[in-house]
């Protein structure tokens, strides 16, 4: 299926969803006033991908900032991934955070406690 690629802006992250490689990336800042609009194509892409997923899907989430409006949409993305993981396909979510950013680590742990997909917390050391 066709890859989904969106360039980042000051308020929205860069997105690279590659169905051929099974690699899904969200990076940067996610602080739009209306996050539903931004995340809709991401959820739709995952809906399609969930029909024929690879054996292993690697998810890389590396956010510098995200607002509470995005936090619900990110959960929707993770719920789609949870559905894929429930099938025969394996999903791993790599949650990146900067070394002194305890809030971002805690945010990842919040998701980990809600979503039944293995998370790997990865500290970025400068």
């Amino acid at each position, binding site marked *: 299926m066709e890859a989904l690629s969106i360039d980042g802006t*000051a308020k929205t992250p860069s997105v690279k969803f590659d169905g051929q490689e099974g690699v899904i990336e969200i990076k940067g800042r996610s*602080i739009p006033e209306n996050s539903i609009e931004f995340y809709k194509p991401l959820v739709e892409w995952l809906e399609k991908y969930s029909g024929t997923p690879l054996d292993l899907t690697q998810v890389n989430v590396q956010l510098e*900032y995200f*607002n509470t*409006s995005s936090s619900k949409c990110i*959960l929707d993305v993770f719920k789609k991934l949870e559905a894929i993981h429930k099938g025969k396909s394996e999903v791993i979510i790599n949650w990146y955070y900067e070394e002194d*950013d305890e809030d971002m680590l*805690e945010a990842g742990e919040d998701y980990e406690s*809600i979503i039944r997909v293995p998370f790997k917390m990865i500290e970025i050391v400068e």
Partner: protein
Amino acid sequence: MSFDINEYYSRLNGGDVLMAFKGSISSELISNVLEVVESRMDEYRESSKIRKKVYNVLVESLQNLYHHIEVLPEVMQKEFDDKFGILVVSRQDDRYKISTGNFIGHDKVDVLRNKIDKINSMSRDELKDMYKFILNHQRLSEKGGGGLGLVDIARKTGNQLDYTFEKFDDAYYFFNLDVFIDLA
């Protein structure tokens, strides 16, 4: 005499002010404010931990205003912009202070007051549980995070949310919220 907005605004302008604004709260305004405050924090050489906390809390404060602000009746629009809000970001000796102010209808005062009092009474763990509950159970509305903003601010700052409701006229109160981020 009713509550005097200008007097209140000048009173907020104490300490070292990084940014002060009063007027219409638009998406573009939010982008500009974030850019200015971010570069001002660079000048102060704040640690990345403080910069991130201030930035996060500022985003939530501004977007709370943006989503929940009252559209004022025409008679008030002569004096105020239609999406009128106030923002002051200042740096004091040991903390950052983010003050926001906006009009709120009489009928909404109690709900908001109860919500903030409840948040202020909660422990760190209780706030975490409340955040996760809202995240997982409430649908997102066009108005934003479905009530997550204030909980998130309380969690990230670890401080009480200071607020006042000042009576403006028979229809409106003026709501002021002060949020503090400790430097150490």
